[in-house]
């Protein structure tokens, strides 16, 4: 079995995994980082979104061995102690989550989205979140949260 080494949320990790192990299963099963969720099996829903090398990636669509040597950030790695990342804070302030299942992926995608372009219109946010499905919120408050999160991130 191949050994993978990577840095997850700032900590070096290494493990022997079956070659077919997906990054999301590596995170959830081997590292017990269960904040990253699995909502589909066709790379459509975005619930599994994490950052690999600073970019949003659907971790169900990548093998753990492909992330060998990479810097990975999951939802668990965003807050500093009890202080939430501005995007997390914005989701809370704007009720951008209900059941919370899509939320980790949504937040990770949103952070990447606002990093790529600072001043996003509503239409651009909606287009940018097209790869993340939420069944609860109807997206209305997610859009508001991303707008606020973008502003707060800029101000940081």
């Amino acid at each position, binding site marked *: 079995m191949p050994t993978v080494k990577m840095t997850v949320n700032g900590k070096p990790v290494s493990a022997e995994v079956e070659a077919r192990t997906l990054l999301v299963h590596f995170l959830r099963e081997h590292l017990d980082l269960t904040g990253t969720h699995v909502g589909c099996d066709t790379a459509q829903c975005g619930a599994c979104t994490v950052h690999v090398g600073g970019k949003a990636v659907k971790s169900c669509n990548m093998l753990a061995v492909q992330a060998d040597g990479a810097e990975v950030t999951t939802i668990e790695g965003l*807050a500093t102690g009890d202080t939430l990342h501005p995007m997390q804070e914005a989701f*809370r302030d704007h*009720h951008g989550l209900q059941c919370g299942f899509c*939320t980790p992926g949504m*937040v990770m995608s949103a952070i990447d989205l606002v990093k790529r372009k600072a001043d996003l219109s509503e239409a651009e946010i909606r287009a940018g979140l097209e790869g993340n499905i939420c069944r609860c919120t109807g997206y209305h408050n997610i859009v508001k949260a991303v707008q606020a999160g973008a502003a707060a991130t800029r101000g940081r």
Partner: protein
Amino acid sequence: MADTGNPTGIGASVKRKEDFRFLTGQGTYTDDIKRPGQAYAYILRSPHAHAEIVKIDTARAKAMPGVVAIFTGADYDKGGVPCGWQIHSKDGSPMVEPPHFPLCKDRVRHVGDQVALVIGESLAQARDAAEAIAVTYKELPAIVSTADADKPGAAQVWPDAKNNTCFDWHLGDKAAVDAAFAKAHHVTKIDIVNQRLAPNAMEPRAAIGDYDRATGEYTLYTTSQNPHVIRLLMGAFVLQIPEHKLRVVAPDVGGGFGSKIFHYSEEALVTWAAAKVRRPVKWTSDRSEAFISDAQGRDHVSHAELALDKDGKFLALRVSTKANMGAYLSTFAPCVPTYLSATLLAGVYTTPAIYAEVKAVFTNTVAVDAYRGAGRPETTYLLERLVEKAARETGIDRVELRRKNFIPKDAFPYQTPVALQYDSGDYFSTLDIALKRADWAGFEARRAEAKKRGKLRGIGISTYIEACGIAPSAVVGSLGARAGLYECGSIRVHPTGSVTVFTGTHSHGQGHETTFAQLVSDTLGVPFDSVEVSHGDTNKIPFGMGTYGSRSLAVGGSALVKAMDKIIAKATRIAAHLMEASAADVEFKNGEFSVKGTDKKVPFGQVALTAYVPHNYPITELEPGLEETAFYDPLNFTYPGGCHICEVEIDPDTGVTQVAKFTAVDDIGRVINPMIVEGQVHGGVVQGIGQALLENCAYDNESGQLLTGSYMDYTMPRADDVPSIDVATHNTMCTHNPLGSKGVGEVGAIGSPPAVINAVLDALLPVGVKDITMPATPVKVWQAIQSAGSAKAAE
């Protein structure tokens, strides 16, 4: 109960308590739980819609690495999954209730039916072994079509269900309806298909069975909206485990929308298997599996006729519906097209005579059951399409026709001809507010402007009512429910004055941990942060019925109010003792007990401490402690209602419909947290837009295969498919529960689909399109435009 101006109290948009854990990845969903020594289950499912199982050979699979056990129908020695609601046909005979074993014995009846349970050291190993099981099937003809299921020559799903008919039921006064039609000035007729949907909570279902040999106790962790109902059904009917030996935990649950109400056979399988293999057994559905194993929603085919007099007053309505049950009867399937549907056919109108017949049919498809709105979206869609068509045919303005027939504001309580008695509502106001917010009056200018750009713009409306908080128990019992529909609530005041609230409802996105804390904190005058809400574990909470049908606040919240009444009554006597006053003179306000007309007072916290440290205490009259439980059985349903208006723009070259604007004005009674309420409406409306424009469970008529079995094929609404939504409320209070609340979980999904389709048809009116079925996809719209065009050209 009134808004108190308290920043964390009733009526305040308090930020949610649950968000911190969800936002930091610390929620605990069922699949996040790892029990020591846990093994993994994979379920081998039927690839055929209908087939005989000739032979199952597991020898090769059993020898594969990491296989713990493999079970098939021959090994399963327990009961079938029961149905929770019994309907009787017109002739008095009970519905046909076929057995539903968790593993098929000799025949599979839909794609996804369960053939074998494979348990492995890892999921990958279980999956590998499942692939090595050799099943010999003899394929049989399949039937999937709702409309054709009862026709001669259709494949038969169950030997006992002649013509695939489960029941043939009716409601209302047929003679009165026939008489009214005989003297009608105008009759409008419509054929309506309410297509099948997949609920698609984002968290796929999961279940872990655990068995403790030392105590003989079973624990089931499951993605459920109602753990006690699962414990009762699975313990008593399927596995014969007494309730004191069975604990059911529904931890954080990632959305339900009805699909996690039902007792699923996978829950029974992992619990049963855990005792067999003496290890915890975890099963987690993947999304493709969810499409062929989660109960689906809707799937009604109806014909309706509305009789009007010369002034446009509705005289009578008759409706005939076929409802698809799928291959098995899911827990509440039979009540959806009957008591949750036909009883609402009066809608918001004074139609004096109504007759409905409903035939439920079996097909070789996944079971159908309640999905957000359950029966009420079907009825609302039918009514609002019918009323719209009547307006077009009679030439009466569509808003005016609705107004003409509204139940007047002063007519409540209003008895409909189909069993329900509405307690309150104000349909004129919700309509007027919605018209104004949507700028209905200014629409023609927007249509003209769009036309200049080559676009077809349309506006549509729906005025609706629904019945929530399903109850009272005695009534639903007489209608066939095999359960009571009360709710429980416990208030445990701790010695230091903080409070734990136990509710039988279950939160899977609704934010009960916040809403109920607001209610309790405001009522008892304790700080919001000192209130914790506990739910979802049968070992912690009294017997509760769970969350569905928008019942949690109206029924569960009322139980909490009753429990708090008891707390306050007892605390008042303790306070009276402390202040050396008569209890009759003691008042409780803002967390303080005081003696009327004096400056004597004692805070709630001191009373709580005294209850647990009863040194100075009326011990001969009162027990120590401060903890009370109440069960609340509602007196009636609640009746949220309102008006939804949708504006769309269609590109005639591509058929793409864009929702330009959506306005929802709902009457939901007392609101505890407006932020949460708006979120519920947003989500519901987008599910409704999804039904109207995007979503459909399509089965192949020949093979019975589900064609939309993944997110590649089933179109979920995404952020760029929908607009922001204008939400407002105009609330009249429910008159029969202590909160005045009516419920909000389903209104969005109920009111919206007809508003969207009426808008689409309004946009297509100028090009001659008169009808379209949901979902109005680009290809369907484009084809409708083309065929209307060629019909016109042929004229």
